[in-house]
C-alpha cells in the first residue's frame, strides 16, 4: 500500500531507479507511522530531500502530517500524545507511564515538549 502510493512521487525523480531492491523493507513499514528517517534511509537520500518528498506526499494528499509529543524523562522518552496537523492540543500533558512509575515529574507543559514529525498514509 505504502509502496504503491508513495513510490510514484519518488519514481518521478532520478532516484526512482534505485527503489526496487528496497521493496521488501518498505512493505514492512507501519503505514500509520512513517518517519522522515525511514524514507531517508530506504532511498539513501539527504534528510532535506526525504523531508521534501514527504511534504510533497502531504500536498498530494497521500500522507497526513502528524506530530508526536515526547516525554522528557530520560528513562521514558516515548511519544505521549500524537495529533494531526492543526488539531488542538491541551496546555498540559500527563505521561501516565511516568505517573505509574512514580517519577518526580509526569505532568508537562505541552509547549515545552520536544515534537517529532511523522506521516500517516491516507488509505
Amino acid at each position: 500500500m505504502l509502496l504503491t502510493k508513495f513510490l510514484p512521487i519518488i519514481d518521478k525523480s532520478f532516484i526512482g531507479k534505485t527503489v526496487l531492491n528496497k521493496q521488501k523493507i518498505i512493505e514492512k513499514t507501519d503505514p500509520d507511522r512513517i518517519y522522515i528517517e525511514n524514507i531517508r534511509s530506504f532511498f539513501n537520500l539527504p534528510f532535506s530531500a526525504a523531508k521534501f518528498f514527504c511534504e510533497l506526499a502531504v500536498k498530494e494528499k497521500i500522507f497526513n502530517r502528524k506530530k508526536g509529543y515526547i516525554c522528557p524523562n530520560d528513562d521514558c522518552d516515548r511519544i505521549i500524545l500524537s495529533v494531526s496537523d492543526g488539531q488542538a492540543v491541551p496546555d498540559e500533558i500527563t505521561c501516565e507511564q511516568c505517573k505509574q512509575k512514580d517519577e518526580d515529574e509526569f505532568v508537562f507543559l505541552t509547549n515545552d515538549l520536544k515534537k517529532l514529525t511523522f506521516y500517516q498514509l491516507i488509505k
Partner: protein
Amino acid sequence: MNSDNNILYRLLKLFPVQTLRENFLVKTKTQNSIINEIVQKYQPEEIYNFSYNFFNYTRQHIYFFINDNKNLNLFESPLLSSVPLFKNNKTDSEITQFYFYNTTYSVIIVADGDNFSRENIDFKVPMKITITKNYLRLEFTIIEKNISAYINTSNRIINFSKTIDEKYILLKLKSESPKFKELNPYDLNRGIKYLWKNDIIDSPFVKWKKSRSTSTEAMDEEFTLKEQYPELFDEIIYAPLKRTIFNIRNGDKYSYNHFISEPSEGEISFTTFAKNKDAKENVIDQILTNN
C-alpha cells in the same frame, strides 16, 4: 569558596592536565598543584586566552542546527547578548563567538557524622557558537557531575541545583535571537549510519525509534550490536536513532574511543578529554561529510 582564584582553578580543571603542563611553565607535578601554580603565576586574561585557544580539548556537548538560508548576515551579533562575549570573529564563510557563562551550583557538603553545610559553588564555563553557511553549532563544556573534583574535598557532595545550564542557554538563545529560533536540529542519522555501515564505529548501547515504541539494546560486557546481532542492525539502520553510544573501532586514529550521539536531534557528546587539538574535528568531519 568563590574567590577569583577559586573560579580560575575550576576553569582550568575543565582541561586535561597534560594540556596544562604543555602550555604553562610549571614546576609542580600533580594536577591540583599544577593548577594552583598556574593560578598564582599567571594573569586571569592569560588563563582565559588559554581556554579559548585550547577549547577543543575539553569534554563537550555539541548541538547542530541546520542553516537553511545559507546567509550569515541574517544572524544577530552577538547571538547571545545576556552572556559575556570573549571573542567574536567573522569571515565570509564563518562566524565564531566565544563566551564564558557564569553558573552557580548549590550543593550540600556532608562531613563526618551528621554535619552538613549548604554551599554555592561558582563556575565560569567556556562555550562556543559557530555559524557556517550550512549549520549553526553550539559547543558546551561538560562540567563533571561529581562537584567534589572542583572544590578539593573528600567529603560527600550532593548536587542540589544550578542556576544556568545548557537548557537555560538554549532557551535564552531562542528568546534573544529570532534567527536562532527559526532553526531546526541538523539530522545526523545519515552521517552516523554511514560510519556504522562501514565498520568505523559500532555500538554497545543503542536506542532507536520503532514505529510505535522506542527500543533500546544494552549489550553485555564489551559486545557491540552490529558484530553480535547483524540482523537487528539491518533493521535499526532504517530507523531514527535516539541517544546512542558509539565505540570508535580505530580509536587511536581518532584520539577518542567513543562518543555519544542523538542523531535525530543533531547532538554529539565527547565525554572524555580529546588527546589532541584536531581529535574532535576529525570525528565531526567524518560524520558531516557523509551526512
